[in-house]
């Protein structure tokens, strides 16, 4: 398994676009600078600022979309038949891809955290405090770990497809529904459930009802297990 994971990282050499996608982590911090530029700095709390830079659209749309694209790119050049006759296990292959997505997601959120602090402090919008920074990093790690779990269905679709059109379409639809269902029922879609878990202790966020952590994890778990089973069936299918 370790060899498989190591190989997955070796395959990323010279994949410039994968690394360029990390720049998307800078998007919301830059937007936040413009958004808050007219506001009075004393009225902006660090958490309020981070809600814009890291805890909103990055979590709902940007990161799931970027990870969906990453999944598609990771699978697109694979000649699976050549791998099966080595042999490598189908599930090992699936999880090694997941590990790359997880690692990338954590890196993405750490960049988001660093750029949020830099954007806030250098523009003078927020004051540098250890508490707010540790909270930001913990929350970013939380997002970085939970979102890859929530997008397991996209990974399952990409490993079962040869092309890239369907996985990209699925990524867009999946991300869009995750965002829409957030306002209707948080425990249907894994991305909505991730938001529910994440929002449970954010200062200033008022939800209609208290977050049911059990239901949220159950939702992510069911989607994750179903996706893994689907991937296993799809990869094991002989033509």
């Amino acid at each position, binding site marked *: 398994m370790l060899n498989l994971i190591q190989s997955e990282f070796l395959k990323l050499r010279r994949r410039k676009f994968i690394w360029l996608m990390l720049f998307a982590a800078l998007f919301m911090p830059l937007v936040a600078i413009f958004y808050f530029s007219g506001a009075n700095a004393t009225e902006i709390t660090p958490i309020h600022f981070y809600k814009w830079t890291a805890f909103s659209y990055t979590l709902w749309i940007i990161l799931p979309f970027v990870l969906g694209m990453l999944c598609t790119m990771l699978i697109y*050049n694979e*000649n699976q038949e050549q791998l*099966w006759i080595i042999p490598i296990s189908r599930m090992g292959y699936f999880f090694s891809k997941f590990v790359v997505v997880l690692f990338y997601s954590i890196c993405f959120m750490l960049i988001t955290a660093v750029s949020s602090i830099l954007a806030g402090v250098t523009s003078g919008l927020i004051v540098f405090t250890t508490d707010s920074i540790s909270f930001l990093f913990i929350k970013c790690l939380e997002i970085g770990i939970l979102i890859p779990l929530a997008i397991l269905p996209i990974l399952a679709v990409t490993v079962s497809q040869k092309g890239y059109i369907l996985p990209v379409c699925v990524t867009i639809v999946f991300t869009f529904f995750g965002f829409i269902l957030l306002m209707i029922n948080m425990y249907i879609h894994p991305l909505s459930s991730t938001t529910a878990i994440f929002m449970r202790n954010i200062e200033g966020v008022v939800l209609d009802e208290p977050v049911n952590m059990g239901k949220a994890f159950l939702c992510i778990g069911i989607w994750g297990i179903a996706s893994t089973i689907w991937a296993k069936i799809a990869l094991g299918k002989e033509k």
Partner: protein
Amino acid sequence: MDNIVIETRQLTKIYGEQTVVNEVNLHVRKGRIYGLLGRNGAGKTTIMKMILGLSSVTSGEVDVFSQTIKGNEKYIYPRIGAIIETPGFYPNLTGTENLEIFAKLRGTSRPNAVKEALGVVGLPYRDKKVFSKYSLGMKQRLGIANAILHDPELLILDEPTNGLDPIGIAEVRSFIQDLCVKRGKTVLISSHILSEISLLADDIGIIHNGVLLEENSLAELHKRNSKYILLQVSDTAKAVLLLERRFHVKEYSVQDTHTVLLYDTDLDMAEINKALMLENISVISLQLCNDTLEDYFKKVTGGEGIA
């Protein structure tokens, strides 16, 4: 039976209504090169995929090293090197980097495995060129290098010379023969090019429309090629009469008013020539002929022949 490395029994593959492979009984013997010869779409790749367990078998059985692949993948696959269809590598990596990944996944313990494999196929070690910039021939060579990387006992090569220039084809042929003769490897190779197979294989299987029409050693196939005496004369009627009376010829066929084929090749051609001349029959041509392999394959495949 111990020296049979691959054996298929009544191997059949049906896609929907179409039978792609029909009750194929294949026998690949240890230490020999088996050439699977057939036109494009004859079913060669499907057979190879079924042997490797990459395609499901509709009916019949496949044994590799006297075991079925299913359930024994971990023991059988490390003993096989294969190229199926076009070799797929990572376009952003160099040839060396690609092979290093496969060596890592295979757990190849030999430190110089990648360098040696690249050397065998004549590709440079640690060059800067990425796979996407490779020519078709280089891609094919890299595929072969990957197949031999872990020093397997059995090589399954699906049209490995596709895209190679004539010198490249000769080199590949030469090292496949070396692998077989010097290192005792068993090779199953497919091709639609008759000359390639006839120069390389010890045993040949002719497949046409999914049916294995013939399976034999190349030497035996050569023996089977019919020999005949081609006789071209001014008057076949007079010539045949003479041949029947004087030489007791019974096996012959009259092709046209000037050509007769005599299937008894032990006849004394000089005597025939002399007798015909004495009877005032002009002899235009008298020669011993031999059907080529291509003629034989045309006959076997019902006249369609192989490229």
